[in-house]
C-alpha cells in the first residue's frame, strides 16, 4: 500500500462512475472518523491520532459492488447543539447535504456518552448506521456489548469495527450497500 496507491489516487478519482448517494461520517472528535473515511474511500486525509485535526470538510468516493457513493468526512461534533465553529460546520453540513446515510462513529468504550447524539440523529429523522469503533479496546477491558440488544432498542443498523486494523470494515460496507441499494 502507501506510495503506489497514493500516486494512483488522481487517476482513480476520474475513473469513478456516477455517485448514487451521499454518506456523511460524523461523531465526536477523535473516535476514528478520518481513519474510517480512509478505509472506505482509499483517500488519505490528515489521519491523525490527535483530536481536532479535521477542520475542513473532506470528500471522497467509496466504490462497492459496482456502485459508487459520495463520502463526506466531517469535523468533530459532540452534540446537535453546537458550541464550537467545527460543530456548527458539521451540523450545517448534515442539514444542507441531506445525506442518504449518516454514519455515526462512536468510541465503543464510551458509547453511553455518545448515544445522545445518535438519539438526536434518529429524532431528526436522519438515516443512521451506528459504528461502534475501537471495539477491540472494549474487549481488552474484558467487556462485551450485546449488539443485538442495542439494535432492537435503537432500531438502526449497528456495526462493530476496529478501523485501525480493518476489522468490521467489510461488514460495514456490506451494511451500507444493503441500506442504500434498497
Amino acid at each position, binding site marked *: 500500500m502507501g506510495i503506489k496507491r497514493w500516486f494512483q489516487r488522481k487517476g482513480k478519482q476520474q475513473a469513478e462512475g456516477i455517485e448514487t448517494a451521499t454518506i456523511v461520517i460524523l461523531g465526536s472528535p*477523535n473516535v476514528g472518523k478520518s481513519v474510517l473515511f480512509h478505509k472506505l474511500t482509499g483517500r488519505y486525509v490528515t489521519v491523525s491520532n490527535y483530536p*481536532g*485535526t479535521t477542520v*475542513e470538510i473532506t470528500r471522497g468516493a467509496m466504490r462497492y459492488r459496482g456502485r459508487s457513493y459520495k463520502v463526506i468526512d466531517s469535523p468533530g461534533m459532540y452534540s446537535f*447543539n453546537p458550541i464550537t465553529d467545527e460543530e456548527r460546520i458539521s451540523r450545517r453540513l448534515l442539514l444542507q447535504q*441531506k445525506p442518504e446515510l449518516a454514519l455515526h462513529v462512536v468510541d465503543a468504550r464510551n458509547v453511553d456518552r455518545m*448515544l*445522545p447524539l445518535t438519539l438526536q440523529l*434518529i429524532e431528526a429523522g436522519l438515516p443512521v448506521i451506528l459504528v461502534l469503533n475501537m471495539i477491540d479496546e472494549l474487549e481488552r477491558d474484558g467487556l462485551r456489548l450485546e449488539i443485538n440488544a442495542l439494535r432492537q*432498542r435503537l432500531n438502526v443498523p449497528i456495526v462493530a469495527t476496529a478501523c485501525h486494523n480493518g476489522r468490521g470494515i467489510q461488514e460495514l460496507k456490506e451494511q451500507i450497500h444493503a441500506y442504500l441499494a434498497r
Partner: protein
Amino acid sequence: MPTSPVEIPLPYSPEIEEAIASLKPILQGSYPISPRALSLLLLQGDEEALDQVREQEGQDAFERAQAVRTRLQDRLSEPVEWHIAQSRHQWGQALVEGALERNAPKKSRGLGEWLGMLCMNPITGFPILALVLYFGLYQFVGIFGAGTVVGLIEENLFGEIINPAVTAFVERVIPWQPIQQLLVGEYGVWTLGVTYAVALILPIVTFFFLVFAVLEDSGYLPRLAMLIDRAFKALGLNGRAVIPIVLGFGCDTMATVVTRVLETKRERILTTFLLSLTIPCSAQLGVVLALLSGHPKGLLIWTGVMIGVFLIAGWLAARVLPGAPAPFYMEIPPMRFPNISNVIVKTLARLQWYFLEVFPLFLIASLMVWIGQLTGLFDLALRALQPVTQWLALPSEAAVAFLFGFFRRDYGAAGLYQLDEQGLLSGNQLLVVAVVLTLFVPCVAQFLVTLKERGWRMALGMLVFTLAFALLVGVFLSWGLQALGIAV
C-alpha cells in the same frame, strides 16, 4: 397518524412532551429535520432553528413558538436544555447498562498504558519530553538530517557536481548575462531557489515529518497536550490551545486554521498571536538546528529565549485580553506502536503539501530578487536594512537574510547557511540572527490564513508587532551576550 414507538426512542418528561405537542400545529413549513427534532431545538433556544422558523412561518408564529418555550421554562425548575440533556444522558446510560456485560476481568494493558501514564505524569513526563526532544529532534533531525544528510546533498551533490554542471551549461547555451544571472547567479532561480528547496529544506522537513508522524501515530501527542496543559494552567493559559500550538511545530499555517477548534474568540486570538510570534515551524526549526548544531551552548540559549518569550508573551497577552479560560477536556487514544504504513503515508502527504507550498514561493522569491537587482531596488532595500544589522552587531551581509526572511523565515535562515559556510558569522552572531529570524514576521501563507481567520486589522497588527518585537529581542540578546562576556 399514531407515531410508532420506533420514531420516538425516548419520551421526555410530560411537560416537555406537551410543549412539543403544542408546537406541532405551528410548524407548517418544510424543514430538513423532523418536526419533533425541530421542536426540541426550539425549546432549547437554538438560534439557527429559531431563524429558520421565523423565516418560514412568519413573525406571528415565531412569537407563539417562543411563548411555548417561555411557558415550559416557567413550569420547570432547571433550564429546559438541562432537562433535555439529562433525559438523553440517563437514557444512554440505561441502554448501555442493559447491553454491557463483563466476561473477563480487566486485562492489564501492559507496557503501552504504563508508558502512556508516565508521559502524562509531570514528574516523569518532562524528562520523557526532554528525551524525545533530544533524540528525536536534536540528534535525528538536527545532527543527522540537517547535518550529515544535508551536507551530503547540499555540499557534495549540489555544490560540487550538479550546480557547476548546470552553471556551465546555462553559460554556454544562453549568452545573455542578465538571464544567466536569473538562472544561475548568486541568488538565481537554480542556485538559490531550487538548491535551497531541494537540497536544504526538503531533507530537513522530511526527517522532521518522519519524527512527527511517529509521535503522532504512537498516541504521544495528546498525552503531551495533557502534560503541558497542567503546566499551562499554572500560568493562567488555556489548555485547549495546546492542540494548535503542538501542531504549529509542524506548520504554523495549518495550526492557524486549527485554532477554529477553540471555543472563544479570545482564545483564538491569543493562540494565533503566539503561533505568529514564537512557534517555529518544522522547516525553520530544522534550519536553526542545522545552523546552531555546531554551537550547543547557542542552541541552549536559543531554546531558553524561545520558551521565555512564549511564556512572557502568553502571560501578557492573556492579561491584555481578559476573560475566563474554558475548561479543557480531551479523549486520550491508546498508546501503541506506530504503524509503519501510517507513518509513511502521513510523511509523504505532508511532504507533498509542503513542497507544493514552498517550492513556488522560493522560485518567486528568486525572481523578485532578480528584478530587484536589475532595477537597483535590491541594493536599496539592503541599504535600508543596514542599520538593523548594525543594531544587532552583525556583518552587513546578513541584511540579505532578513530581506529573504520576509518571504519565509526558513528561507532567510537558509540564506544564513551560506554566510556561515563562508565563515562570516561568529557563534554569537549566528545565535542572534537565529533568534530574530525565529520571531520574525510569519510566512506569506501564514499571514494570508491569519488574514482570513482574524481579519485585516488583527493580521497587520500582529505583523508589525512581531517584526518590532523580534528586532528588540535581538538587540537585547546581542547586548546581553556582550555585557555578560558569553561566547557560544
